[in-house]
């Protein structure tokens, strides 16, 4: 019989009675999602992986979400798979804008390495304890965090400098920039 998400929640609450683990409410939240406080994340993850009744051996992906203008602004979402029990569970960690940092889970699942680098690359969220937290998809000298909601889509000067060493890379003020309105001409 597949493992029910309620059982996962119950098991976590038994093991961590003092940690505020909360199920996400909402009619259209299609997957069982649990909010976990950032400080307890590595312990919870290690337990989810090692407990034989849960056995979430596969970390499917780590996603950053910018919920501007909500507070806390960011969410990091972990999609986990248990192969032996054929189950999925979603963990969420809320990250405030003032101090966008949370512990890394690379020690628990080595696959988190690139996923966390991607979240850092897109949102500027730092993962404490990550072995190599550098940009992964964007160039190393890129300025800004492109998937944040206050980062505009397109129409910026090209930021590559390797062919023109004297060019100064643009330093957009992310507080000032707004998404540019695009006007399409009708033929």
């Amino acid at each position, binding site marked *: 019989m597949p493992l029910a998400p309620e059982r996962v929640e119950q098991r976590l609450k038994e093991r961590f009675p003092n940690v505020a683990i909360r199920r996400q409410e*909402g*009619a*259209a*939240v*299609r*997957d069982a*999602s649990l909010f976990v406080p950032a400080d307890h994340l590595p312990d919870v993850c290690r337990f989810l992986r090692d407990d034989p009744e849960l056995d979430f*051996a*596969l*970390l*499917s*992906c780590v*996603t950053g*979400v*910018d919920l501007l203008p909500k507070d806390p602004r960011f969410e990091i*979402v972990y*999609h986990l798979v248990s*192969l032996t029990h*054929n189950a*999925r569970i*979603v963990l969420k960690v809320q990250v405030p804008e003032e101090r966008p940092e949370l512990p890394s889970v690379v020690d628990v*699942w*080595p*696959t988190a*390495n*690139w*996923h966390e680098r991607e979240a850092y690359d*897109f949102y500027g969220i730092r993962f404490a304890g990550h072995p190599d937290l550098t*940009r*992964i*998809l*964007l*160039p190393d000298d890129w300025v800004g965090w*492109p*998937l944040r909601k206050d980062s505009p*889509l397109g129409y910026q000067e090209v930021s590559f400098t390797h062919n023109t060493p004297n060019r100064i890379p643009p330093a957009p003020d992310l507080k000032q920039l707004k998404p540019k309105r695009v006007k399409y001409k009708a033929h």
Partner: protein
Amino acid sequence: MRTETMTLNMGPQHPSTHGVLRVALELDGETVIKAKPIIGYLHTGMEKQAEYKTYTQSIPQTDRMDYLAPLSNNLALCLAAEKLLDIEAPPRVEAIRVLLTELTRISAHCVWLGTHALDIGAMTVFFYCFREREKVLSIYDMVCGARMTASYFRVGGLAMDIPEGLLDKCQKFVDEMPAHVDEYEALLSQNPIWLARTKGVAPLSAKDALALGATGPTLRGSGVQWDLRKTQPYSGYDRYDFDVPVGATGDAYDRYLVRVQEMRQSTRIAHQAIQRVRELGPGDYRLRNYKYVIPPKEEVKTSMEALIHHFKIVAHGFFPPVGEAYLAIEAPKGELGFYLVSDGTPRPWRMKVRSPSFVNLQCLPKMVEGHLVADVITAIGSLDIVLGEIDR
């Protein structure tokens, strides 16, 4: 005698890196000490762009992720959106989707086998494989008018009905295909050069594969029986009869065997899907739920309500509920997942693509460190990566 290690850049413009992958290798003589894949040369910000497009407008974007398997990507996005909307496509549509995605898997594996063999030095296989791939591309052409970027599936159905004669053409291809797979196997499976270049090369244990998040043939080659079509069936896969091939040792040869067997299994599924479409007969190719799916064209011409729905959905897009959904399918390369966060507007607040190649590529250092530099080529080939979906 004092020796020094040497750093060598493989790629990003190297034919065996399947696109623009760069691997920084640290070598001691011919032995790889450290390998670091460097990616991002094809990054086009597809996830950011998706936030400015409606769900339907993102479908052509997904064709360009894994450009060898456009319909698998279409399917993953459509199913994720359908999960968010809590709707289900009609059975006939599901059968057509299964048929076409299995043909996609065959064509994606054909390209993989051809290029992988070419990398290792067997040129003939390439021409054989591309011959069959061309047949699948002509089926795409027949069904939607494009050879490479199909964009054929829609949320709640298909873009248009399948043309007359398509099922006969698919049946012909499915009947011929097993003999062609025999041809590929005759060229490679017992070939001493092939065995020497792949057996025991680029090994990956089941434990490492799981820890590194590998899915698809890369994970199954290491002996883990995990196929989302079997374990978490979508699009009616539970009604088809097929086996999940697994490897034993997790070397490049096992991954080769798994993929070749998968081509045979895909022909089996496609055969059953054709029968099912025939049994179901002509019918709707889209869900009749006009809140989310545009009505059939004939109705738009005669009914005022249908015209209004058509106009609203084309002009604004549909309005999903506030919520989120993650759905993963078994794409040719592994678990392809779409995570959609909706704020109730016609554009997704966030669309994350969990692409299998991105995750599988992380296994590369584990496979090549301590082995010869020539085996790096085999390892990259046996991972079956597409840089379009790694960099997105």
